[in-house]
């Protein structure tokens, strides 16, 4: 019976076991009126929510708590009895010049890539929203790099920017310019930025969806009033698109601070080697991986990650505050709540 099969995912739930079968039996209680119906629906909700809630508790909340505990110890994975060291790791994180400089580099990386990829995505979205031939094909092809798995993308860029056999130096050679070692300092940072921008199809698609929601009448009215294309873009398109752009700023920052692409671009031929990341690409996450893999400092790496999480929360909060008034919602304030929820939860 299909009802039996579908209870399987909920089965781990002890509370779900009995409530999972309202089935045909519910008829017996039908006479008890709307209250029992409400109760039954409540029970059903818990049954449907149970797998996620249990999974969240076991696979997210518990590891988070464990991470918090680890960050207060000197756990290194080798010695059995790791010791409680209080806030020692946090003190070290905040005073370690290596950690702080990798954090600063991450900040620069975010400051360069997030605005650039949103701008590039918006430009492409405007272009593929024009009434032109084969625009569906253009959309698909420009989106294509965004779905390439990160490892595949990193390997591709390693080949393009190879010193001897790469296309980048081939182009320079054709222009009679000497090639450079792209994957080393000081150029490695720009390979990383280029690689990140290659995925701008993602922001293009999201902006495109936003563009298509803008009522055509607005642009028509502006044209009648004598606005040129640029005025129409800055005075109508951008404000109408501001919730979408705001959403992209938040998700873009959250994704970029966690970027570990430098690891993949400069991975050694030896398994799990992270020693060869050029300094300019030594981002915060790379430092975390180095502390973790190379040095086995679980406690210290956990403290670094908690710091990163606090920074993400702070940035998100800050962006929310700063964007007040700058983000334009086309709904009245009474209805603003669901609209804001949509923007946060959108990805």
């Amino acid at each position, binding site marked *: 019976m299909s009802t039996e099969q579908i209870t399987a*995912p909920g089965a781990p739930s002890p509370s779900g076991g009995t409530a999972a*079968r309202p*089935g045909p039996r*519910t008829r017996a209680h039908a006479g008890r009126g709307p209250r029992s119906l409400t109760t039954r629906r409540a029970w*059903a*909700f818990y*049954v*449907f*929510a149970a*797998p*996620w809630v249990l*999974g*969240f508790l076991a*696979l*997210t909340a*518990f*590891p*988070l708590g464990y*991470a918090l505990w*680890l960050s207060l110890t000197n756990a290194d994975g080798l010695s059995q009895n790791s010791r409680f060291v209080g806030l020692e790791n946090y003190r070290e994180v905040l005073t370690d010049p290596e950690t702080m400089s990798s954090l600063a580099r991450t900040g620069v990386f975010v400051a360069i890539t997030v605005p650039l990829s949103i701008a590039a995505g918006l*430009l492409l979205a405007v*272009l*593929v929203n024009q009434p*032109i031939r084969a625009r569906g094909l*253009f959309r*698909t*092809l*420009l989106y*294509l790099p965004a*779905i390439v*798995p990160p490892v*595949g*993308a990193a*390997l*591709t860029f390693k080949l393009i920017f190879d010193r*001897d*056999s790469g296309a980048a*130096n*081939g182009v320079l*050679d054709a222009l009679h310019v000497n090639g450079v070692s792209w994957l080393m300092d000081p150029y490695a940072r720009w390979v990383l930025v280029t690689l990140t921008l*290659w995925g701008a199809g993602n922001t293009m*698609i*999201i902006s495109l*969806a*936003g563009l298509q929601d803008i009522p055509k009448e607005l642009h028509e009215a502006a044209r009648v009033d004598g606005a040129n294309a640029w005025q129409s873009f800055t005075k109508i398109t951008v404000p109408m698109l501001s919730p979408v752009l705001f*959403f992209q700023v938040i998700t873009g920052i959250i994704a970029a*601070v*966690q970027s570990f692409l430098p690891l993949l671009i400069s991975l*050694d*031929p*030896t*398994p*799990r080697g992270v020693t060869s990341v050029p300094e300019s690409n030594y981002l915060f996450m790379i430092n*975390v991986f180095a502390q973790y893999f190379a040095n086995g400092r679980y406690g210290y790496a*956990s403290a670094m*990650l908690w710091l*990163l999480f606090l920074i*993400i929360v702070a940035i998100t909060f800050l962006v929310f505050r700063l964007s007040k008034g700058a983000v334009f919602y086309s709904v009245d304030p009474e209805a603003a709540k669901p609209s804001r929820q949509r923007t*946060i*939860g959108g990805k």
Partner: protein
Amino acid sequence: MVFPRRSAVYMLLVGALVLFLGPFGWLLNTALKNPSELRALPVHWWPHDPSLNNFYDALTQIDYLGYARNSLTIATVYALLVTLASAWAGYGFARLDAPGKRLIFSVLLSTMMLPQVLTLIPTYLLFAKMHLTNTYVPWVLWGLCGAPYLIFLFRQFFSNMPKELEEAAIVDGCGQIRIFWRIFLPQSWPVIATSLILSFSWTWGDYIAPALLLDDAHTTLAVKLAYGYVNEHGAPLGNLVAAGAVMYVVPVLALFLIVQRGFVAGAATSGLK
């Protein structure tokens, strides 16, 4: 000089296409060159003597098909489980009500903002203690609880379905599980397809989790590809890397191109509406 507007659009788009598709061209180009041609100066823009040998070597120098099978197993198991589990939870959030629902839902939304790496180290240590590393059990567990983003996707879809569907079923004596399984789920195939594709490609492309949880024998193509192709001196073999990467990337791209009708629009709007 003033261009007619439409041709300016075409020029910009074609320029963008060259930049965006160029890397694929170079990947293929490198995969078809023979090793000596790779070192040719000046750089050969087309392979003068194209051959498929690199593909053969890429398949045989490492146990390519074995690693591909590992990737395929993990990605398929995870995609199927996570899609069903996310639809299950999404139905609850969309159609049912109970005390605490808003709280649970806001926790669900906020986990989407949580950096995944934060749970990574403790998860690894916990799974190691439970002897679950070097097995695919973690992916089964992750799949069984659903993914917040996909739950959200299903919730949005189920929320928009007419109330009458449900009411008629209740009058007929259907329980919620049967309503979900027989009525709502069969109607949600566009979201099911989106969810399957997204979750499959996440897992196919994931590097960190398999690198952390799996040893060399159990690991995935994504991990092995990143460092697997070296000569006896430990120097990377560009041609084989390229051939291996083509075979790794093309299935994902092909899957996307087959189903992209509506997917591009769907992936974009589902997140924002």
